[in-house]
């Protein structure tokens, strides 16, 4: 579904990604784990077309999307929930969801998706008219995910959905990620919370200072001594 080949990205002089390669197959949950500043967000932004790449190639559904503009990828089903939620603070929950469906013309299917999204996140339905900026952190994360679902994603990129959330809420969010995946949406999940991420993923990649240093089945990564030491708290 997604194939990243030898990705190099710079911020001015800073060489942020130094040859990142990985694949995500249809139907999978793949996680990209690594510490702060490893290059996870940069990877996702580059895939979404928000940052230009210096070298390498990105294939989505077998075709190169290198250089395709961010806004043109959404209608192809390549959708991202950015780090830090980035809901539109001065707009209502409903308006945020409407914007998720911005590129879609099939009104009837959009309406159905709205019902599905409210079924998945009942709390958002209660707060339809509330301004997104006044929601709690957990509710904003749910809104960001709900908004992305309104884009009708085939591949969903999630950047640290658990960031700053209480453990109970993290569990809830991860359950929802699994549920979304079970409806046929392929997922690339970026996390610092490696424990949780590996518990729901099929496979994982460990990224350090702009390079993939380890990869494998989620279970075997979770059992790996080096991974345990660096990311799983011993």
């Amino acid at each position, binding site marked *: 579904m997604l194939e990243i080949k030898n990705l190099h990205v710079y911020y001015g002089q800073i060489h942020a990604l130094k040859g990142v390669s990985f694949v995500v197959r249809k139907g999978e949950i793949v996680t990209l784990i690594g510490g702060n500043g490893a290059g996870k967000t940069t990877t996702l932004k580059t895939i*979404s*077309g*928000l940052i230009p790449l210096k070298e390498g190639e990105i294939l989505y559904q077998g075709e190169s999307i290198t250089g395709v*503009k*961010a*806004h*043109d*990828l*959404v*209608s192809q089903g390549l*959708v*991202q929930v*950015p780090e*830090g939620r*980035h*809901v*539109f*603070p*001065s*707009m209502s929950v409903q*308006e945020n969801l*409407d*914007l*998720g469906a*911005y*590129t879609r013309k099939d009104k009837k299917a959009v309406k159905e998706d709205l019902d599905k999204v409210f079924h998945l996140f009942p709390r958002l339905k209660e707060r339809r008219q509330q301004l997104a*900026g*006044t929601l709690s952190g957990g509710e904003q994360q749910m809104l960001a995910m709900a*908004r992305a679902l309104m*884009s009708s994603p085939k591949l969903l990129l999630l950047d640290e959905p658990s960031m700053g959330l209480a453990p109970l809420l993290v569990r809830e969010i991860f359950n929802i990620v699994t549920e979304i995946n079970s409806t046929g949406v392929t997922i690339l999940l970026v996390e610092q919370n490696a424990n949780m991420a590996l518990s729901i993923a099929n496979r994982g990649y460990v990224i350090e200072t702009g390079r993939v240093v380890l990869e494998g089945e989620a279970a075997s990564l979770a059992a790996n001594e080096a991974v345990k030491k660096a990311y799983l708290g011993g």
Partner: protein
Amino acid sequence: MAPLCLIKKEGVEMGLFIQQIVNGIALGSIYALIALGYTMVYGIIRLINFAHGDIYMLGAFVGYFALTTYKLPFGVSLALAMLIPALLGMLIERVAYRPLRKAPSIAVLITAIGVSLLIENLAMLWFSPDPRPFPQIFPLRPLELSGIRVSIPQVIVFITAVILMMALNFLVQKTKVGKAMRAVSQDKEAASLMGIDINRIISLTFALGSALAGAAGVMVGVIYPRIQPLMGVMPGLKAFVAAVLGGIGSIPGAMLGGLIMGLTESLVTALISSTWRDAIAFSLLIVILLVKPTGILGKSMREKV
């Protein structure tokens, strides 16, 4: 006897006062139309488009030529005086501002001033610097309403401005493209992740703001029938002040700021002196910004993260 005299005098002053309020509202709705363009552009790309006053001037000239040279009906002339400035606004954004989107703000500021001077000088070259009389399409005969005189041009200006502002409000609040405009102004990166073509929305914002300024150019011709290539400088500045006064980036703020500006100017002229008009108008800005630095309806910079 004395008290009666006083009452009579007060009556006269009250009449004058209300008369000036009427004039101030008409003038204020013109400032509001111009201020909207400043505030919309600022809201979406944090840029003060100093060429905006000149776009208003262009609107007046397009209206002038449409009405005189081509003898078009008023409605058609007004539409053209909105359309041509809209296209010019888009062109300016595309050619002058977009390449500088990531440049330091001082470079953008200098460019904006440069664009303004360019338009003014081209206008003097093409239209000649001499003032021209704007054709009088509406009868000047005033309507008397219990002692208050409202001229028909004033009524036309006010109604047109209100219709345009209501249309803008509907567009921004209720339509899909309006939602996209608000999304881009709140968070550009998130907006592109929704599939919104940011450049298209910015372009459209310039078009809308410039169209309203163009309409204001025709409106001013209707009330003060003299136009010339530098006519945009002072009203441009004042409308900018109005936008800051109302809270730059806020659409209702621009409407309110424009109205306050027009009323202040008109009342100061009548009750104090026209020499003090601009000084007091600008002092008002300073006072309001000292009390509320973000303007009357401006949002505080603190946003929930």
